[in-house]
């Protein structure tokens, strides 16, 4: 799938939860959202992308990357 | 230009009064304005301004239409959307009101407006034959304006001048105890420019 699109979608989700003052709550909220609404092949691809590290482009927000990595 | 206000004395029906009457009428503060005499075209901005000025009155539509007619002499159909917009009414509502009241003219009137009372008290005092005479004299029927635009003849049902029947209004001036002769004299005194 188009990784640019997936990363944008994930970052959009991250932007919403970023507002939460408690970082761990934000991370778990993002992860739950991805788990509940993303079809497995989308999740697979984004996890793979997150694993490539913080610098991989397109860039995932750090908060989002951390959340994705909890999905494994 | 003031000749149209003059025939006040004419009710007395004496020729020698006429000139005197002319002079007197010119100084009257009780003359009625007939501004539409000078209004040939109407002005949308003016209509909108009238509506704006009066729109906050409760039930503003009647005062607005009244003022429009006072200013223009009639209420052109094209005013309706303007008034409706300002008062936040539908065009239909404004039209319905406009067409209900006989005072509101939907066509421009003639240069002179003659109203003749046709109600019972005046009937009892020869009003019916007076009305026939006036129609013949003016050459137009009730509710009509003569082809040359000189006269509009309007019926009216009681002017509250029943103790002085029959009554006629010529360009806003009320006349009592009118006879055909007095009416003719009054008409012949109207300013030629307006005929």
């Amino acid at each position, binding site marked *: *799938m*188009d990784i640019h*699109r997936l990363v944008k*979608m994930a970052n*959009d*989700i991250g*932007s*919403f939860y*970023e*507002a*939460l*003052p408690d970082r761990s709550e934000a991370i778990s909220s993002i992860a739950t*959202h991805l*788990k*509940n*609404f*993303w*079809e*497995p*092949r*989308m999740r697979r691809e984004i996890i793979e992308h997150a694993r490539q590290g913080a610098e991989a482009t397109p860039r995932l927000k750090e908060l989002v990357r951390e959340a994705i990595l909890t999905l494994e | 230009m003031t000749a149209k206000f003059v025939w006040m004395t004419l009710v007395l029906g004496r020729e020698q009064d006429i000139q005197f009457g002319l002079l007197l009428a010119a100084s009257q503060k009780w003359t009625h304005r007939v501004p539409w005499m000078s209004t040939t075209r109407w002005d949308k901005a003016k209509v909108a301004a009238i509506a704006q000025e009066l729109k906050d009155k409760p039930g503003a539509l009647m005062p607005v239409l009244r003022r429009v007619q006072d200013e223009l002499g009639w209420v052109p*159909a094209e005013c*309706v959307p303007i008034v*409706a917009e300002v008062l*936040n*009414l*539908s*065009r*239909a*509502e*404004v*039209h*319905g009101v406009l*067409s*209900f009241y006989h005072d509101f003219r939907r066509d421009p009137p003639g240069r002179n407006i003659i109203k003749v009372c046709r109600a019972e008290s005046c009937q009892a005092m020869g009003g019916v034959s007076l009305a026939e005479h006036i129609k013949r004299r003016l050459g137009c029927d009730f509710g009509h304006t003569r082809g040359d635009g000189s006269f509009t003849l309007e019926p009216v049902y009681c002017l509250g001048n029943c103790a002085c029947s029959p009554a006629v209004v010529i360009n806003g001036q009320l006349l009592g105890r009118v006879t055909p002769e007095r009416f003719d004299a009054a008409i012949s005194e109207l300013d030629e420019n307006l005929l």
Partner: protein
Amino acid sequence: MLAIDDKDLGTPERKSDKLISLEVDGRTVEVPEGTSVMRAAALADIWIPKLCASDLLEAFGSCRLCLVEIEGRNGLPASCTTLAEPGMRVRTQSQRLTKLRRNVMELYMSDHPLDPFECKAGGKCELHKMAQAVGLDHVRYSSSGRNHLTLPVDNSNPYFTFDPTRCILCSRCIRACDERQGTYALTIDGRGFNSVISPGQHQHYSESECVSCGACVQLCPTDALMEKSVLETGPAERAVITTCGYCGVGCSFKAELRGDQVVRMVPNKNGLPNFGHSCVKGRFAWGYATHPDRVRTPMIRKRISDPWQEVSWEEALRYAASELKRVQAKYGRGSIGGITSSRCTNEEAYLVQKLVRAGFGNNNVDTCARVCHSPTGYGLKAALGTPAGTQDFDSVRASDVIMVIGANPTEGHPVFASIMKRRLREGAHLIVVDPRRIELVRMPHVEADYFLQLKPGTNVALLNAMSHVVVTEGLAKEDFIRERCDVREYEMWREFIVQKRNSPESVEQTTGVPAESIRGAARLYAKGPNSAIYYGLGVTEHSQGTTAVLAMVNLAMVTGNLGRAGVGINPLRGQNNVQGSNDVGSFPHEYTGYRHVSDPQVRAAFEREWGVKLDPEPGLRIPNMFDAALDGSFKGLYVEGEDIAQSDPNSQHVAEALAAMEIVIVHDIFLNETSKYAHVFLPGSSFLEKDGTFTNAERRISRVRKVLPPLAGMEDWEVTCALARAFGYPMNYSHPSEIMDELARLTPIFAGVSYGKLERLGSVQWPCNDDAPDGTAVMHVGQFVRGKGRFMLTEYIPTEERTSPRYPLILTTGRVLTQYNVGTQTRRTKNVTWYAEDRLEIHPHDAEQRGIRDNDWVEVSSRAGSIVLRAEITDRMQPGVVYTTFHYPETGANVVTTENSDWATNCPEYKVTAVQVLPTTRRPERRVPEPAHHAEMSHQ
């Protein structure tokens, strides 16, 4: 005329706890206080003659047929305007009354053709019925008297005629237009005997403000106002009650038939939610159902470049199923999916998702709500526990403050708008939030207290600022919050919302709305006491659609405006069955009743009922399907009732995705943009040709009844069953009621729903179960469905779609009254008379800068593409924002929309596209039909 079997009690129902007992013709009747003598008599089955009265209108007292004798009273009071009083003794029949009524009828008939054979309604109009009822057989007045028998007939409306020679001046048409529709298009010209019903300024109907809702025609007691279809086909013989196939108001209609032909659609006066009212679409624009374009035979083709080949149902279904199986075998279980539609019945949508989940073995099912109201479902469920509007439509009659945001009810939801306008005329306050000055901002007898003309895409900032005012000015309903909401989350939200960046002053620049207006509106809303929010796609179709829904919930909760009549958060759903198709499990992550596919208990129940193992992982959403198609992992699609190629954003991208699939099955009533990419076309049945149910925006489940046999021989639910069987999954129902029974078995919120109950109650609002056997009008009474209401942090994050020197304007979209969505239906009716092409609305300033004059062709280009249409210069728009509808495929408005979408649901950001608009010599690819008057001129 009312529908053929409608009874009319003469005056509207009055509600009162106080009952009054009176005697009518010796019969004792008990009625609520405020009830008229006429209605009381009718309730005792005593029918007093009448012509100007109708229970759809307030009493008027003009016809004087309904006079009665009341013991101890002088004269003969009119029974319509006389209220019942305790102990009253009424006589409705006497020689005196009979004579008087006959003499009044004689006056009517002295200016009317007496012969019922001359009646265009076949003598069945109320006037002729009354003449018979009072025993009038001849008229003594001379036939040479003054009359209206030579007035010209007005045929200017495409759907009905007005013949003033048949008019009796009862004013029912005028009152219908005023009281029921709220348009005030009609009046009387002149007075007394000279009175004539006058549309506009004594003009033709077509030149007046008339919106063709049909209320005047329905209420006309004579043949003066008649549907042309009745004049052509003849009076109806029978009627079938069904539900409108257009918007999410879901009006109840009677389809009237003569033989097998539909004569007309009349709003069902006893039906909810419309109480006998209608709009131009439901009332008149049903002709598409028998339009020659309807496809009547299944068709297949190997490649999309091949011509269509008509085949039998068996062959089409066998081919479709075998292709799906082939693709699935080749590319994997997840490589195929289905799309249901909000145009389908609950039963049909249920079957499609069942086919996908149980037959295809995956959860790749989605519905067109994805592109409209998915943020509503997500937001309302997350915060309150139920993804649906909180109120019934009638609740608005108890509202003191109505806030309309991102919706245009008078165009999009006209019947509800009429109810709302009535409440506004009664004195409720109105706040309109919209980038465009919609009609509701100021129209006869309605004027918004606040019109917050914000910049597109800034809803969240504005809503946050309103909440900021509520909290910082001490207007929060602390008691309500403590009792009903999660207090920890409230405290957290409170801390967030009071921050300076959320103040009206801070967002003034962003939203373009003066801070004082935001403050004023917030105070008004907080003051209530009953404040309700109504919203539409102007809220949801944004990158922050879900956030905005949550921000509205926050505002409603902080002011205590949830859980009773007159308040709430109410989505105005675009299509008739958006709510229903969502309810019955059309989303890829949840089963019916909004239960997640990962829930083992729920899944187990479905597995038991359906007899297969089910996938616990969410499936692909529509845009993900397209992405996966281009990616090569999604190759087959069954689309029922949606034209995704036209209605989904970035048409080019959609087209490429569809072209990349190996089997596309389109199941629809017309060939459309999507079918250009299809390999199988299965002809669908219109709403007139099938049984089922629709669920409207207020959760009301109403029956759709088969009025005509399906043109292609099969109802849609039968086709899906046959496709499932061909695919190898058994699906056998003898009637849609069995589908509903299965749905009810599996779904707690529907547990009490059955066709039997719908037959009995007319309609029912879910939740309907043992706790609420007759359904639920207002939700969250006492406590929220999820327990405690959730305040969620709604940070304003601007969309990435920004203006730039290259694309300096923002394009936003909407619709008009007479057209519907992509126009599939309405373009095939005479509604094109009013709106024959999409237009680009542009502010005079922007037009001037670009040298654009009214009616000029302009090219609108965005980062995604460009389209050509004509410009309409109007100060409805704010500078910097342009607007168009998307009713005509020729325009292809979605060519320019982008792929930005809502963070939570991927609902596309239709409402914000940066564009440039310039004059052009280009013309739309397919010629847009010229409006009628232009066409006439071209012949000269």
